[in-house]
């Protein structure tokens, strides 16, 4: 028997009050929505006046009931790799970062395609990450194709599912086309989705044209959507944690209403990246304990409704890899895992989500592994907990020799990588610091990394598609896939 530990921030009466107020908010003052969904909402009997939808609770509850309680994302091999729903916990790297801590100088600089590829290859090798993310905006790629190009690189270098997102209403379809090529068609993508798309309402209570359209189009494509509601407590949301959790719930419920009206039963996740607003600096600290409390509280509301959940954690706010950043990241990793949040994004990120770091990613992976061990809980044997072993070892206490010790220690203990200093001496007697250990770990992972190519015909189709799209935006070649001199010769892959 195994007892799984859980962390519960809110109790049932408070969860009911939060939902009660969220339902009040979506009716009055209502939710700002875009013209793209006016008719869809009106068709369901929702009053839309001056761009504001007034959603009745009864209708919202009916639509919430239609949301799938669980679904899977699939690896390229066709097997489920991420299970949304229940208390399953998965992690993926943080996403859409403009800057990277340079591996050599450890100074922030604009991210390039090569940085994304390096991070994707490292994440591919780490079992702690069930999914990839389109982690960076590549500055060597034109802005207008930035969103799908990131996805292309991730699909090219990893078989894991992807947490991604579009930068505009129209580019969503390019990303979906790319995924469909990789999956072998739109229907195959719908049956075995390889990616989930983050869609963000604007706080407070506003579904912009872009976000509304993404919700509708994803629902109709049958590709999972993940709502990333971002109340900033005290700035764009009530200052109290409970008040911000209410706003988060109202934004999620209204998003689900739009999504389920577009296509009932399409998969969607109750997610977010809430944060407190620091009243001294105006920053939004992702590593603050109150931000973690918001994440957990918001997820608890989603779980109370029986829905799949997501949160943005495992990120720190310092500008370099230091004790602060890792303390913050470690704390929220543990809390997120104990809360049973299905997908926890944010690993590798620092400086208020302004910077990514592959070195931090591999350190965070150790915190994640520890958190994963934690939620496995304590195994309690039905026969005997200790007495049977004492019967053999006696008061001499030589437990190291017991066959049970040898049989069970690997299950009982998690063995971290060499990033964690457990007093294991290095061959040359040196004591590398955490950054050096992270760099060594990355080198090990990269040297063991092996790319798994797609079937040749799909690979060719993806390249042809990417070249066509890239050419339209004036990009010569496909950075990190094809060098410019070979760009027009698809035979040379």
């Amino acid at each position, binding site marked *: 028997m195994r007892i799984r530990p859980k962390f519960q921030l809110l109790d049932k009466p408070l969860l009911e009050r939060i939902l009660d107020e969220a339902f009040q908010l979506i009716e009055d003052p209502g939710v700002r929505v875009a013209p793209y969904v006016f008719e869809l909402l009106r068709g369901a009997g929702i009053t839309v006046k001056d761009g504001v939808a007034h959603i009745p609770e009864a209708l919202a509850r009916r639509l919430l009931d239609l949301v799938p309680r669980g679904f899977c994302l699939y690896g390229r091999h066709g097997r489920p790799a991420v299970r949304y729903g229940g208390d399953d916990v998965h992690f993926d790297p943080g996403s859409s970062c403009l800057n990277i801590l340079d591996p050599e100088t450890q100074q922030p600089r604009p991210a390039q395609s090569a940085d994304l590829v390096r991070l994707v290859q490292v994440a591919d090798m780490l079992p702690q990450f069930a999914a990839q993310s389109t982690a960076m905006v590549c500055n060597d790629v034109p802005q207008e194709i930035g969103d799908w190009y990131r996805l292309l690189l991730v699909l090219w270098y990893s078989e894991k599912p992807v947490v991604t997102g579009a930068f505009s209403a129209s580019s969503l379809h390019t990303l979906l086309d790319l995924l469909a090529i990789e999956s072998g068609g739109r229907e195959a993508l719908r049956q075995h989705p390889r990616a989930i798309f983050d869609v963000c309402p604007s706080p407070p209570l506003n579904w912009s044209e872009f976000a509304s359209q993404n919700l509708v189009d994803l629902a109709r494509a049958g590709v999972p959507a993940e709502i990333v509601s971002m109340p900033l407590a*005290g700035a764009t949301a009530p200052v109290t944690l409970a008040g911000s959790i209410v706003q988060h719930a109202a934004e999620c419920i209204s998003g689900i209403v739009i999504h389920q009206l577009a296509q009932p039963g399409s998969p969607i996740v109750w997610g977010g990246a809430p944060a407190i607003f620091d009243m001294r600096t105006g920053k939004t600290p992702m590593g603050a304990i109150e931000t973690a409390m918001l994440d957990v509280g918001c997820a608890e509301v989603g779980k109370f409704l029986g829905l799949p959940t997501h949160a943005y954690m495992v990120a720190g706010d310092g500008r370099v890899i230091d004790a602060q950043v890792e303390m913050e990241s470690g704390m929220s990793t543990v809390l997120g895992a104990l809360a049973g949040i299905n997908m926890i994004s944010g690993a590798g990120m620092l400086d208020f989500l302004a910077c990514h770091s592959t070195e931090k990613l591999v350190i965070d992976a150790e915190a994640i592994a520890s958190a994963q061990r934690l939620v496995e809980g304590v195994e309690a044997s039905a026969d005997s907990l200790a007495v049977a072993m004492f019967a053999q070892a006696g008061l001499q206490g030589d437990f190291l020799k017991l066959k049970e010790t040898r049989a069970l220690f690997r299950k009982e203990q998690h063995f971290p990588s060499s990033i964690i200093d457990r007093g294991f001496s290095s061959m040359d007697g040196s004591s590398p610091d955490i950054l050096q250990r992270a760099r060594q770990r990355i080198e090990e992972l990269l040297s063991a990394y092996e790319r798994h190519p797609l079937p040749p015909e799909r690979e060719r189709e993806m390249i042809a598609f990417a070249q066509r799209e890239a050419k339209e935006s004036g990009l010569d070649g496909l950075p990190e896939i094809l060098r410019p001199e070979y760009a027009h010769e698809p035979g040379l892959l």
Partner: protein
Amino acid sequence: MPDEKFSAMRQSIVDGAPDTASGLAQQAVSSGIAPIDAINEGFVLGMHDVGEQFARGQMYLPDMMASAEAMRAAMAVLDPELKKLGTERPMAGIVVLGTTKGDIHEIGKILVGTLLTAHGFRVHDLGVDVAGEKFAAKAKELNADIVGVSALLTTTMRNQKSVIEAMELAGLRPQVKIMVGGAPVTRRWADEIGADGYAKDAMSAVDLARQLMAQKTNATVAEPV
């Protein structure tokens, strides 16, 4: 006695008390204190205190917003009195503010606008999702000294560059200073896109705006007529 009144005015700003500030401004007018003295020897000193206390970490953003509101309440009484006398408060500069195209976040921009106004700038806020051409048109119309461009998202931050390009296209770049800010914005980014300055928070934006005005004044003086 006026000294006591001036210090009460100053304190009303520090306390963030709009009703008190407004009442003290009215008392100043009825007791014959020159409006410009009430401003410069009373209320403005309060805003200076607020800036200093904020910089020391002794005041927080909601306190500062309340102080700015108190300043606005006092000026609502004193500005018309200045006009009656045929004068107006010396203006620190004209600023056009907005959030970039594609971005609808404005909390930072509102903070900057509030504090600039409290520190004597005339601020025109274009709102959110503003195209570069719109910044340029408004800057031209108002003969602005400074254009401030905010962006919250990594994806919309790049549109700050479009604002600079639109300003160049409109031929306004030599006379209008451009400052940028927002969560993902860095000094390096500001340099890269050719902005004149970057401010990490609302209070530094006020200091930056003052520096840019000083640069403008010096440049004007240095230019051959």
